[in-house]
């Protein structure tokens, strides 16, 4: 607590009359009680004089400002109580201006950018460097951060190759991976330096992903993409950009795992380096049979389990649709059911299943893309059409497990 010497000062250092008058006027304009303002400013002036004499002018000024700040709520309250409506409006506008100014200054201070403090590598999927799968020239991406982690817009970062495979690197950071291998590149900005690895893995071509059929409720599956390098061998380090065209049907997480969400079809754009490819994904709804299918159930799949000599008869909807039976391998649990066309997990059982139809329906047998898969393209003109699946093959297992998919092309 400050203590004040009671004796009179020998030096008169009262605030200048003009500035004191200006403070009086300002406070009076904001609607304060004149007596209250005169008392308050008079006490501040008197004590300022004592403090300037005993503690010095600088300390007295600091005290004066501190006391004004401490007294501000009381001045405001006094102005609210004693001010006229117009004075209160001026006071509100003044407070708003102070608060707005303080807020703007605070935000500006918090978001201000400092000098460059670090260079951060970006653009690849590996933390120790940048993966480049392009055959053509690529602009390196290097982020410049200040000490507080703010990203700075700097274009004057310079690059040079330090060691590793001899690839062309321009000072502006344009590189061209003419051969596979790792190169050490140094980025420089004033006194800042950062060495990082360029993993050159140019991709000549992308083989389409061999999977595309999913069932709602299945766990997420990893998207496997075969990228082939200049030497004809698969490329092991890939920085791929994947995008699901209709993300209501399926989504891709950060690790490239695809999660089926609802029945439907969508396309996945795959971009690796300067090569592009795509994968068509169909998501089916799991059903127990085809009996009682609603018109909106366009893509359904049902598990099939047939013992030798047995057959099933299922009603079929009207309209145009594909029917596909896929036999699972004996190792695959029956609950996994459906194995898709062109799937990486190919059925190992040569299908001994016979598929036939009855009623006002016409079907065309589709080419068998894989062993164990039966396909048909059908047109059922009237209700009452039936599918008959029979397992009669001699020499096969006692029981065959698989799945039957129905894909409607239109609706009647």
């Amino acid at each position, binding site marked *: 607590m400050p203590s004040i010497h009671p004796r009179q000062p020998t030096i008169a250092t009262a605030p200048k009359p003009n500035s*004191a008058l200006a403070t009086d006027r300002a406070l009076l304009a904001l609607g304060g009680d004149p007596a*209250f303002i005169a*008392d308050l400013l008079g006490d501040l002036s*008197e004590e300022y004089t004592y403090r300037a004499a005993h503690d010095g002018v600088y300390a007295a000024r600091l005290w004066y400002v501190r*006391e004004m700040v401490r007294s501000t709520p009381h001045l405001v309250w006094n102005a609210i109580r004693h001010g006229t409506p117009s004075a209160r409006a001026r006071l509100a506008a003044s407070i708003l201006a102070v608060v707005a100014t303080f807020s703007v200054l605070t935000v500006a201070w918090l978001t201000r950018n400092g000098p460059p403090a670090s260079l951060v590598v970006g653009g690849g999927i590996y933390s120790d460097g940048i993966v480049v799968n392009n055959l053509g020239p690529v602009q390196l991406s290097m982020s410049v951060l200040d000490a507080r982690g703010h990203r700075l817009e700097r274009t004057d970062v310079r690059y040079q190759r330090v060691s590793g495979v001899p690839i062309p690197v321009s000072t502006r950071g344009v590189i061209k991976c003419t051969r596979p291998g790792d190169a050490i590149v140094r980025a420089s900005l004033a006194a800042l330096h950062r060495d990082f690895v360029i993993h050159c893995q140019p991709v000549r071509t992308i083989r389409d992903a061999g999977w595309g059929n999913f069932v709602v409720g299945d766990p997420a599956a990893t998207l496997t993409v075969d990228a082939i390098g200049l030497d004809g061998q698969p490329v092991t380090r890939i920085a791929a950009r994947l995008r699901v065209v209709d993300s209501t049907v399926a989504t891709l997480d950060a690790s490239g795992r695809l999660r089926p969400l609802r029945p439907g079809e969508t396309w996945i754009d795959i971009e690796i380096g300067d090569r592009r490819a795509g994968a068509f994904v169909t998501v089916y709804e799991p059903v127990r049979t085809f009996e009682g299918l609603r018109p909106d159930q366009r893509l359904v799949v049902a598990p099939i389990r047939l013992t030798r000599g047995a057959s099933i008869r299922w009603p079929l909807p009207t309209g145009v649709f594909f029917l596909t039976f896929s036999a699972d391998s004996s190792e695959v649990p029956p609950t996994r059911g459906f194995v898709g066309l062109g799937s990486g997990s190919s059925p190992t059982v040569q299908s001994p299943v016979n598929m036939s139809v009855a009623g006002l329906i016409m079907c065309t047998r589709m080419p068998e893309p894989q062993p164990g898969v039966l396909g048909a393209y059908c047109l059922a003109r009237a209700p009452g059409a039936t599918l008959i699946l029979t397992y009669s093959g001699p020499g096969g297992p006692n029981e065959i497990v698989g799945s039957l998919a129905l894909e409607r092309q239109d609706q009647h």
Partner: protein
Amino acid sequence: MPIATLGALELTTLLAVARLKDEAYGLAIRRDLAARTGRDYSVGALYTTLQRLEDKGLLTSRHSEPLPIRGGRSRRHFTLTGAGARALREAERHAASIWAGIGKPLRPRLA
């Protein structure tokens, strides 16, 4: 004056005015409060309290001649009114009443 309407700062301020008599003006009252309570009240807080006590009729005030040391402003001297004196007596009685019977155990034992 019911004691319930006097806050702690109001009571200590009234006592300071009573103690300082003719020298009871803002700066002197602040010094007295600081010396006795150990708290550094702001000038604004003190004058808000003094004004409230005056509004309650417990204090009256008069202005001195303008003083150069106050930037040409006058000092405002405060005086206890009869109601203020009664409020202090009432507060003293009230304090004695609520402290009655518990003085001894709380007093520190001297070694």
